[in-house]
């Protein structure tokens, strides 16, 4: 019969009661391992995006398995496919509804440059309407390429100055209803 329980949790006697780090490091560590994607699946790239979510490639190894179909709950919009001029408005509107911090990944040739669709109907690169952080080549890219791109995005997030201005008071934005701060 056991007389004492083995302690698996954080042991303050071993670690000390204070962890010294930088705010940037902590914030970026949290953000880069919990990138909830907004799957903007518009063409065949979305099939590869789905494969990346499956068991074989398993995007959840990077904390990105929680595909959010609501822009308000997602951090990173993965534009997977051909963006037509008619759809450009929707992509922009969904991007605007995402809460900061937010990132955009242009997955594949079409989202990056218009790809093979040099045509009257296709937006020649999604970077014309939203700021793109990572471009992934391929037509469509394999899931490995997507994972590589998402790891690049993690590297980029880790280098951001997330804590800059965090402690200085910012002026409140005027209310949409009253117009007063």
């Amino acid at each position: 019969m056991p007389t004492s329980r083995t302690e698996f949790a954080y042991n303050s006697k071993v670690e000390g009661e204070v962890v010294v780090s930088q705010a940037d490091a902590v914030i970026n560590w949290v953000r880069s391992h919990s990138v909830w994607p907004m799957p903007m699946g518009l063409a065949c790239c979305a099939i590869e995006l789905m494969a990346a979510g499956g068991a074989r490639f398993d995007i959840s190894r990077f904390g990105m398995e929680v595909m959010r179909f609501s822009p308000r709950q997602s951090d990173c919009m993965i534009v997977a496919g051909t963006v037509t001029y008619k759809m450009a408005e929707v992509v922009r509107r969904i991007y605007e509804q995402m809460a900061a911090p937010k990132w955009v990944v242009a997955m594949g040739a079409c989202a990056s440059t218009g790809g093979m669709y040099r045509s009257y109907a296709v937006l020649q690169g999604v970077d014309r309407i939203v700021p793109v952080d990572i471009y992934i080549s391929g037509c469509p890219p394999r899931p490995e390429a997507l994972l590589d791109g998402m790891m690049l995005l993690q590297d980029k997030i880790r280098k951001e100055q997330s804590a800059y201005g965090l402690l200085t008071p910012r002026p409140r934005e005027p209310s949409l209803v009253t117009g007063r701060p």
Partner: protein
Amino acid sequence: MDTIVDTLKSKFPFVTPRPSHDQPAVNVPADHLREVAQVLRDDLGYDMLLDLCGVDWDQARPRFGVIYHFYHSGKKTYLRVATLAPDSAAPAVPSLADLWPAGDWHEREAYDMFGIHFEGHPNLTRILMWEGYPYHPLRKEFPLAGIETELPAADTAAATGAKVIAAPMMGGPFQAGTQEHHHMSDAEPRAGDQSWTESKPKPGQKG
């Protein structure tokens, strides 16, 4: 094989046979199209409108036409009906959307791409391009790359400065490779002008 063509010719003096390699085909003047279509559906059993498409005959007058494909689900036979819009400047043919509901969206597509007006259509609006787009892209004079115009969403255009542009063609439309390829990447679609790529630097640029 051409019994349906003979039947139509005997019923309607204005119907003429149309040269065809595969299925029976007839020409019908646009002002008699609904008359013939009604008989085709109610008396002759052509119960499906499989497809209709606009055609731009370029230099010919009348310039625009519409080609219909009908199907007889009992006999399992097809019939092609071709008509021409008499006015080349403002092409118009009667709508068949009330006889075959399948005609609804197809007529909207032909209107969107060619500017052919379907008289009597319940909702003749664009179906592929956005409302307010100033061109009909499948007309012969319209370039594949497109013509610069405004984005459909004014707020997106104001926030980003983006426009609908003439796409950079780089020597022609992108095509998949046709010859033998040793690497899968060589078979990916590419432009006609490959004078500079990832491996070959731009002219005037240091490699």
